[in-house]
């Protein structure tokens, strides 16, 4: 395509276009409707449905608008008798084999085929012969198939190959026998698979959890922001009778384009579970009992007021809203403590003194597509941050290179030019090797760069645009501060950016809101304890917001111990045994769908949303609970009437703060994690990220959910005389857990893989640690 502007005429109107643009792009931009099924602006052109046929002057036959490049002076007629006849003819053919089962079809009412048939179909079918029937394949717990309805547009097939980077669906057979499917029946493996539901113009691919649950015209649509990862995908919640029935993407080119991850799409299932907290609870004579709000809030306020100054610790979820984080920080500081932290999964806080004012991703999502080199450190980006991975994949398709240093041999949906797989402890040496090859400081790590390091260094050096991206495994690493300094050194030496992916939906917002011990909301320095020190104690009182003690912390055992010896006020949406065992006051709060609020994504977009439904039972939005607690402890500045007032107060307080990753000066952080024997690889499984995701039944049934086994490679298993399929006892710091073993060659030698945030690892400590195994 060139930038040359030309003029064409469509239905008598003169339109400007770029030479080489497809006709349908020009008519779409001008708001001229041309019917279509196979065309999609983010997919390649197939031109196989023939629905967009239009008349072009001097062309002997109607031409498909989606595959006809415009030329200067072209005259197009989208509604001429010839065009109409072609469109109606196509429609009649498409309907020949389509069943008339709209009344029982989930797509009914929002179906492109229905819509187009109204405009272009005949009122009576002339077809009297038999219609074909296609057997349905089971393609997993997320997508329901009714392949008899398929019109073979191949959008889903193209999506797999071009966007998801994993071609799983295909068109097998020929002619009458052609069918869309996987051929060998299996669940789709793509973390973006749900998007084919939106792409399918008919009811062939629909949402399995939503199947037969509601009709589209019963649903009320409410805009929202996905609350799981730092992308902050724009979504629409579809609500019926105060229940979120499904979630679909809302287009926003700067954030999620037209896609969302399966996690964002299906997590709504976690909103309606049996273990939602609906009434406040209070510990009395050692037992929790139900209480009314007044009583519970008074009790909470009393605990807060009785806590000696500086002895309150507040631990908040990195996915809590900006308003909640700001008010939690304000309350904590009003009570004379700076100890508030959202970095619950982080182990290493040695770098805090060097922290920038508002760390962020380092590059805007759209800019990542122009990366010439991307170095991923400690992340299975494909599963951790599916939409971020989409951007990195695009950068590779655009000619850039991607590299990774990971504690397991994880599959990416693009080629990695350098793929270093090492033990967790060796990640430091590997990154230092790249730094050394670039001539940057290795932070005192003695290392001789090998070929991989030199290649990585050369590719980063050559790149005009690029980044070093620290993922969740780096953030959870015992030497995170060191990894971060190395990443910054590399970025500086290569003249590129660096950043991290964060853990939740609001990591960047948490810094803005002052939900860290050393940085208050007004930007001044704080003197509080970080998440780890709070749990190391002594903390007399702990205030929890939206986090579960057994799954959301770096060290579940240390957390359990600390909660056991402290007074605990928990604002939570869910009851979990670990929470109820520790809490003295339990205040039920709303989830993302039930509260208004704001999330700041990794590129710093401040995205506000309103509640789509009301919370169950007596649960209340957390910002209101915190506001009332502020009033009850007689703190100033808790007079907000709406979440927007809270947000505006904060944004005014922060003024012109810009996201920035420049590290300040700090003392050297020597490598502290040097285990001798076996090492445990932790990390968060894709669907173990937060309380809502962990409760989404369909997601937990996908192949991406953790299978409950301890993974290690065959060599390591043989070296420790472990039989695959048998059971072992995993010992870590004197604690142990028994579980079955499976062989997984992705795991490096002398390592075992047991993720955090799953029930089996709740009885252990930090997720990257020295461990041993013995036969159970």
């Amino acid at each position: 395509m060139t930038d040359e502007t030309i003029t064409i005429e469509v239905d008598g109107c003169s339109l400007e276009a770029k030479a080489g643009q497809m006709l349908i792009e020009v008519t779409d931009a001008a708001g001229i409707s041309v019917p279509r099924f196979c065309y999609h602006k983010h997919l390649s052109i197939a031109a196989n449905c023939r629905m967009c046929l239009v008349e072009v002057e001097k062309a002997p036959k109607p031409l498909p608008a989606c595959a006809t490049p415009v030329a200067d002076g072209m005259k197009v007629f989208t509604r001429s008798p010839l065009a109409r006849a072609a469109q109606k003819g196509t429609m009649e053919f498409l309907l020949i084999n389509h069943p008339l089962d709209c009344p029982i079809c989930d797509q009914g009412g929002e179906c492109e085929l229905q819509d187009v048939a109204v405009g272009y179909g005949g009122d009576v079918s002339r077809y009297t012969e038999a219609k074909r029937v296609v057997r349905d394949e089971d393609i997993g717990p997320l997508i329901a198939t009714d392949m008899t309805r398929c019109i073979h547009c191949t959008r889903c097939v193209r999506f797999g190959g071009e966007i998801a980077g994993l071609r799983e669906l295909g068109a097998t057979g020929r002619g009458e026998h052609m069918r869309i499917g996987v051929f060998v029946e299996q669940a789709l493996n793509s973390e973006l698979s749900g998007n084919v539901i939106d792409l399918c113009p008919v009811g062939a691919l629909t949402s399995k959890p939503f199947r037969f649950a509601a009709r589209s015209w019963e649903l009320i649509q409410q805009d929202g922001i996905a609350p799981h990862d730092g992308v902050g995908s724009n979504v629409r919640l579809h609500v019926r009778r105060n229940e979120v029935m499904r979630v679909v993407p809302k287009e926003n080119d700067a954030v999620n384009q037209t896609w969302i991850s399966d996690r964002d799409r299906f997590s709504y299932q976690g909103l309606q579970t049996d273990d939602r907290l609906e009434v406040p609870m209070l510990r009395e004579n050692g037992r929790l009992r139900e209480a009314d709000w007044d009583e519970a809030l008074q009790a909470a306020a009393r605990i807060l007021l009785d806590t000696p100054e500086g002895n309150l610790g507040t631990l908040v979820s990195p996915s809590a809203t900006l308003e909640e984080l700001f008010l939690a920080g304000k309350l904590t500081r009003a009570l004379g403590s700076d100890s508030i932290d959202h970095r619950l999964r982080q182990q290493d806080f040695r770098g805090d003194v060097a922290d920038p004012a508002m760390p962020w991703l380092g590059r805007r999502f759209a800019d990542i597509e122009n990366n010439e080199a991307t170095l991923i450190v400690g992340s299975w980006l494909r599963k951790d941050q599916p939409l971020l991975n989409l951007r990195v994949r695009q950068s590779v398709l655009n000619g850039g290179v991607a590299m990774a240093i990971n504690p397991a041999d994880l599959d990416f949906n693009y080629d990695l030019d350098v793929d270093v797989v090492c033990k967790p402890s060796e990640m430091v040496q590997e990154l230092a090797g790249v730094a050394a090859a670039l001539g940057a400081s290795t932070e005192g790590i003695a290392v001789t760069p090998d070929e991989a390091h030199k290649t990585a260094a050369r590719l980063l050096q050559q790149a005009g645009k690029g980044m070093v991206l620290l993922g969740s495994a780096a953030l959870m690493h015992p030497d995170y501060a060191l990894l971060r300094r190395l990443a910054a050194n590399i970025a500086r030496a290569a003249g590129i950016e660096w950043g991290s992916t964060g853990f939740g939906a609001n990591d960047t917002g948490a810094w803005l809101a002052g939900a860290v011990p050393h940085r208050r909301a007004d930007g001044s320095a704080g003197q509080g304890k970080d998440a780890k020190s709070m749990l190391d104690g002594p903390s007399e009182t702990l205030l929890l917001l939206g986090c579960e003690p057994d799954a959301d912390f770096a060290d579940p055992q240390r957390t359990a111990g600390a909660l056991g010896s402290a007074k605990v006020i928990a604002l939570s949406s869910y009851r979990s045994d670990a929470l109820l065992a520790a809490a003295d006051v339990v205040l039920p709060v709303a989830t993302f769908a039930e509260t208004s609020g704001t999330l700041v994504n990794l590129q710093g977009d401040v995205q506000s949303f309103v509640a789509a439904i009301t919370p169950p039972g007596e649960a209340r939005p957390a910002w209101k609970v915190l506001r009332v607690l502020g009033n009850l402890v007689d703190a100033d500045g808790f007079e907000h009437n709406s979440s927007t007032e809270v947000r505006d107060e904060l944004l005014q307080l922060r003024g012109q703060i810009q996201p920035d990753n420049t590290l300040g000066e700090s003392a050297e952080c020597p490598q502290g994690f040097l285990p001798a024997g076996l090492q445990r690889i932790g990390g968060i499984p894709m669907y173990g990220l937060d309380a809502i995701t962990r409760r989404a039944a369909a997601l937990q049934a996908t192949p991406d959910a953790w299978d409950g086994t301890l993974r290690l490679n065959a060599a390591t298993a043989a070296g420790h005389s472990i039989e695959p399929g048998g059971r072992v006892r995993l010992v870590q710091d004197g604690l142990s857990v028994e579980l079955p073993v499976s062989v997984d060659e992705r795991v490096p030698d002398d390592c075992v893989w047991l993720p955090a945030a799953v029930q089996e690892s709740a009885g252990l400590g930090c997720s990257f640690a020295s461990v041993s195994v013995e036969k159970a």
Partner: protein
Amino acid sequence: MSLRIEPMQRVQKAENKDELLTPEIRADIDAWIAKYPEEWKQSACMAALSIVQDANGGSLTTALMDQVADYLDMPPIAVYEVATFYSMYEHKPVGRHKICLCTNVSCMINGSDDIYEHLRTRLGIGFGEVTTDGRFSLKEVECLGACGGAPMMQIGHNYYENLTLTLVDQILDGLE
């Protein structure tokens, strides 16, 4: 987006290619791969499937198609698409001699129905079936482009044209 003309390569390429299929088959496929530009290995897909099918007694299995996919760095589904589109690939075991009888217009007008009846009586099998001794299988095919010699059939790599019932018997008698 635009029209897409690029090879359908997969990211996770099979590592031990020298363990796939047999050395002879790999050599045959390599000869085909060499005919195309380096990144267009997938162009050898049809030839590879034919080679593999011939070596497997005339039919394909999913496991064999997966090995072809691995060998050509293609997504398995893309190989299934090719193998199910073309009628010369078989997905069920066939007889030693696969009789492909054309029943399209020219052959039908010239008596392919009679040929079919005759074959059915003689072999005791219909279209899509294999004789119990595994010697013959019968397949209905669309036009093979030999209308000038209708009615016709194909057995193995040979075309037999201007068929009569006697000629059919002679041909079958001549096959082991």
